């Protein structure tokens, strides 16, 4: 992860201009989400021999999105396994391997394909500990890119955050930054329960500043805790995955107009960090949720319901508004696709409506 001089200079100036939240950043290193995930896999496989990776093209192809680059070369056929294109079969096999004493990381090339294996994720994996009264645990990770990409059409663009986070017995994380990706994937692998890791293809190539702590072999982020990416006092924006980027961009634009948004990066969808959201709403009194998935029964709907049931309800100055993907299957044409995903201007408009800056 070494840099050229120009990139270093760019980075340092970036550090100085950006406002930060909880993570202390020592100037120095940029890490892409892809490399963060790669390091997480590498470090956890190095640390624990029972951890292994299976999925389509993860070995000799270095990963469809190159997330597993170099791992097969380093660890060999036993630990990095190319599977045939049979999601139901290999997901079931991964679950059995977890029951039998291993710690599999089962990659879905995208989570759209997980629908073929969803019975194994839910019925074979997530419910088993409970049905067996705690006798049989299933320490498995299901990971892969989730949600809208670019130009891939309706069957390859669905967000599964709502579906998976609906189910007790699962833990579900949705990283945004490289720090999130590394810390959450490592936590997921070390966790003894089934964890779904919803990555985002468009973020794989994005570089983020990371501290030395993030680069260390034991950097783990607790599952179930959100991060306040940007502090603010006029309104709370809650998002996960790539929507965090959109929320931050909107917050930046709004700051120029004197509106200070508090941006919460959920990091985990189950458990959902209700406490952090409630505390923030009690401070700002206004809430907008931002997600790329569909609105009905979505993450925003869940957050809204929780806020309404919480003490924060009485602090709200206006109704909770959800900013979501448009309620249609994803079209292919570029302008339509762009219109189907919340953009910065959608969030800005929603904030202004909620704060009654705009009619």
């Amino acid at each position, binding site marked *: 992860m070494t840099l050229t001089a120009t990139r270093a200079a760019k980075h340092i100036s970036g550090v100085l201009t950006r406002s930060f939240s909880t993570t202390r950043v020592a100037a120095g290193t940029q890490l892409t989400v892809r490399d963060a995930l790669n390091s997480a896999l590498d470090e956890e496989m190095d640390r624990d021999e029972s951890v292994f990776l299976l999925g389509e093209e993860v070995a000799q192809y270095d990963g469809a999105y190159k997330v597993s680059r170099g791992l097969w070369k380093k660890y060999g056929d036993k630990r990095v396994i190319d599977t045939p294109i049979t999601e139901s079969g290999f997901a079931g*096999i991964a679950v059995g391997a977890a*029951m*039998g004493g291993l710690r599999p990381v089962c990659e879905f090339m995208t989570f759209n394909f997980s629908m073929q294996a969803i019975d194994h994720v839910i019925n074979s994996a997530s419910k088993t500990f409970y049905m067996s009264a*705690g006798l049989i*645990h299933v320490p498995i990770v299901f990971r892969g890119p989730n949600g809208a990409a670019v130009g891939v059409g309706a069957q390859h663009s669905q967000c599964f955050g709502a579906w998976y986070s609906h189910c*007790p017995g699962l833990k579900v994380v949705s990283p945004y930054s490289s720090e999130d990706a590394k810390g959450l994937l490592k936590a997921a692998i070390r966790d003894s329960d089934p964890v779904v890791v919803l990555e985002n293809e468009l973020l794989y190539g994005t570089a983020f500043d990371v501290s030395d702590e993030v680069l260390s072999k034991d950097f783990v982020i607790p599952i179930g805790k959100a991060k306040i990416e940007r502090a603010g006092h006029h309104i709370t924006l809650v998002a996960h995955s790539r929507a965090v980027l959109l929320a931050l961009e909107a917050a930046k634009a709004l700051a120029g107009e004197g509106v200070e948004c508090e941006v919460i990066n959920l990091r985990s969808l189950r458990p959902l960090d209700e406490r952090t959201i409630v505390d923030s709403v009690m401070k700002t009194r206004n809430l907008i949720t931002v997600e790329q998935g569909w609105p009905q029964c979505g993450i925003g709907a869940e957050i809204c319901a929780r806020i309404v049931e919480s003490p924060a309800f009485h602090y709200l100055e206006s109704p909770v508004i959800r900013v979501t993907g448009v309620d249609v299957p994803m079209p292919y044409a570029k302008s339509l696709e762009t219109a189907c995903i919340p953009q910065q201007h959608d969030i800005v408009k929603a904030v202004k409506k909620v704060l009654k800056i705009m009619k």
Partner: protein
Amino acid sequence: MLSKLVKSVLKPSQANMYSAWPGARRTATLMWSDFWELSMRLLSPFMTSSVRNITAGKTATFETRPYKLHKLDEAPSATSSCTREEALLYYKQMQVIRRLESASGNLYKEKAIRGFCHLYSGQEAICVGIKAALRPQDAVITAYRDHGWAYVMGCSVTSILAELTGRAQGMVRGKGGSMHMYTKNFYGGNGIVGAQVPVGAGVALANKYLGNGGICVALYGDGAANQGQVFEAYNIAKLMDLPSVFICENNGYGMGTSVARASASTNYYTRGDYVPGIWIDGMDLLSVKEALKYCIDYCGSGKGPLVLEVATYRYSGHSMSDPGTSYRTRDEIQEVRQTRDPIMLLKENILAAELVTPDELKKIDSEVRKEVDEGVKIAKSDKEIAIQELAADVYSEPLETVIRGTTPFDPYTHMRLSKIINPH
């Protein structure tokens, strides 16, 4: 009289008359120790004690039923030896299961068991025969017709019956029910048809990865045999040479659909195509046992998976809500009961070979009756677990302590009560 005595030791089993395969014979081969016994019997009228003791450790050898092979040159052993102790054990195990399932049927009719209840009566020789060959490092996974399996894999009769009635002494505390019974090396108990097959291949993968030499037996029915994921499991198991034994318990019907109506090919032992297969008469316990010994040897030497088809029959319907007579005749069921019942077949064999006496078997029958009756009593009288325990063991590493109740006003607290038994 001498010839009569000799004949009583040497005569072929009367099972010949009931055999569904004409020409099949069962003969007990005399071991040299039988000559000792023969002499003793000659002398016994002159002895004071009339109680006949059968020598401990006595062994008899039986012929196994013919196997059918798919892409294999060698068949499992044509003979199977059985010691006296084994004979008593197998008889007892089968009788326990038969009685247990009968008791379950009655409990269901009394509404003490709710939901689904799938009975194994008629198929006992399979789980007892397979378990007889398995070693401590081997694992089993099956579908929902799992009560007999739970028993042979180590769950007590009481823990099975109490699980069926949903009480605290159930082996999973009443949280699983009929279809979700688990114990060490036994991964259930699975409700989704076919799902257990790739999961079983995964357990085999773990065994191979960890180098513990264990196989994993994954059972499924003739109905499940057409599931896509089963073929996906065959494929990966063959590619990776997994120590997987895929076993189709073909009882002729997938719920109400006969095999001919469900499967374009009913040769389930060949359905693995590139995976070699064996067809076995599942009513003959020792044939099943020998086949599994063969599999352990085969898979254990890294040759990869095998697909077995065990021909069997279930006396009951698919489940307790199915009388089992709308899609088959009562005559058909009766015919199997009278001519091919697995317990009857074993009994005849071991009696004819004089491994055991009729009195000993009667004694076992009454012990089994007692054991199951006591289990039923407990299953009916035991309490359910406390309501609060519905929030126990959702996660092995809970991250939240609060679990939402039916309203936000009455949350539960997540509890960790169990000790994990699968490898970790």
